[in-house]
């Protein structure tokens, strides 16, 4: 078996004061809140809605029509159900365990709300929204969706009956995940049983972080990562170990940095200021299409 150099922990971040995105997402921001988008390249934003109980309502909560250009939004549903629609005519429902990978690229208008039927009963809601930057050459490509139902996600049994690993994107031990990406990215949900331990390895220069979605764990044998905490790794090695103190679900992100200039303003992430101005102008003049509120 190949031996890897251990990757040190750069930072463990506790969830900060949550804020609401629209009225339907109560989130802790970890990117760029904990580490800048330059440091987290190619991951440019991560909002985490930790478990939160939404009361029943006839009027679904969420975020109204807004544009995106220049990147991809990845929504991972752990609890609850979201309905979305966009100006290109796309739309769908993301339920528990599903992932929606939206390539905004040249631009879409979209809206996201709690699913109507789910809203009527309400309940526990837990989601991650991650923005993945696009290489400059792909920023103005055509928008597209990858609706990835949980059944389509590759599931791999971990060695020593430690639990199960879901490969959303990239690969684990040669097993490919369903999402196609524009730059090399690995994205897993690691489900570890109480007391179980596993080791994960990625090229040292890949930006690598984990989010403790459920349960607590000890990282690299000595650092505690509690539920809802975000752990950022350094680039001094390849591998790290995770030992679950109780049944744990861990979102693992690792991506090769794009190393391109970033010009970001609100919902647009481009390479230059001029491209940002174009994005606003194109949005204002209808080039993103139209979507009813």
């Amino acid at each position: 078996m190949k031996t890897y150099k251990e990757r040190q922990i750069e930072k463990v971040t506790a969830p900060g004061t949550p804020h609401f995105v629209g009225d339907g997402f109560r989130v802790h921001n970890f990117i760029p809140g904990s580490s800048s988008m330059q440091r987290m390249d190619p991951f440019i934003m991560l909002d985490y809605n930790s478990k939160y109980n939404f009361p029943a309502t006839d009027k679904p909560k969420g975020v109204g029509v807004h544009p995106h250009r220049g990147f991809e939004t990845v929504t991972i549903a752990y609890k609850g159900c979201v309905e979305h629609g966009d100006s290109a005519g796309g739309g769908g429902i993301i339920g528990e365990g599903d992932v929606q990978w939206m390539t905004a690229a040249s631009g879409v208008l979209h809206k996201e709300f709690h699913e109507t039927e789910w809203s009527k009963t309400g309940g526990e809601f837990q989601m991650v929204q991650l923005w993945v930057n696009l290489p400059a050459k792909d920023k103005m490509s055509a928008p597209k969706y990858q609706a990835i139902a949980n059944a389509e996600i590759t599931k791999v049994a971990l060695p020593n009956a430690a639990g199960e690993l879901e490969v959303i994107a990239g690969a684990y031990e040669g097993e490919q995940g369903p999402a196609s990406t524009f730059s090399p990215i690995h994205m897993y949900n690691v489900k570890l049983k109480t007391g179980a331990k596993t080791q994960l390895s990625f090229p040292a220069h890949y930006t690598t972080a984990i989010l403790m979605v459920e349960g607590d764990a000890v990282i690299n044998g000595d650092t505690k990562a509690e539920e809802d905490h975000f752990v950022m790794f350094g680039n001094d090695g390849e591998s790290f170990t995770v030992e679950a103190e109780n049944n744990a679900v861990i979102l693992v992100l690792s991506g090769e940095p794009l190393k391109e200039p970033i010009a970001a303003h609100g919902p647009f992430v481009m390479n230059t200021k001029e491209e940002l101005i174009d994005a606003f102008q194109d949005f204002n003049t209808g080039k993103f299409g139209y979507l009813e509120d």
Partner: protein
Amino acid sequence: MSLPNFTNFLIEKGGLTAEEVLQVTPFMRTETVANNAFLLKAGEVCSHSFFVESGVLRLYALNEEGKENILQFATENGIVSDRGSVFFQEPSTYYIDAIEPTVVVLFDEAFVNEVAKVNSSFRVHNEKLLQNHIRHLYKRVSLLIGASAKVRYLEFVQRHPDLMLRVPQWMIASYLGITPESLSRVRKALAAENFKSN
């Protein structure tokens, strides 16, 4: 409090050196305005111009039915005031409130005098601001009297590219002097014209 936008305004537009900015810093007064909080209410005498360091302000009047008519928005580097109330020391008929958490620099004749002591070119610039504002008001009146909703909208987004994403649409419609439905129609028509589905 660091004021990068106001500092830049004094240097780039006002012609001050970085050292001169330091000399006038003791005379700068700032105010942090919460979302929905007022800087001016009808009946009060407006005492300042407000330079927006960060955030968004609006200037509006209430008509006889209590409807808000928005005369002006001011975002970063913009200035808003009821200049008539300031100059003539008479009660204002307008309101100025914040529609995002906002930081303003208070700007009045005394401040202009202090800056002019340090660098006289600032007075010229201040006069230019006033003339520019009047020019803009002519244009605005002319558009309101004669231009289509589409032309008014396009002129507005050219001037304020980011406001459609920061301000509720009904406020934009109010500023443009059209109904929210009419604004939706304009945006829908533009999308039909310009959206290339992939």
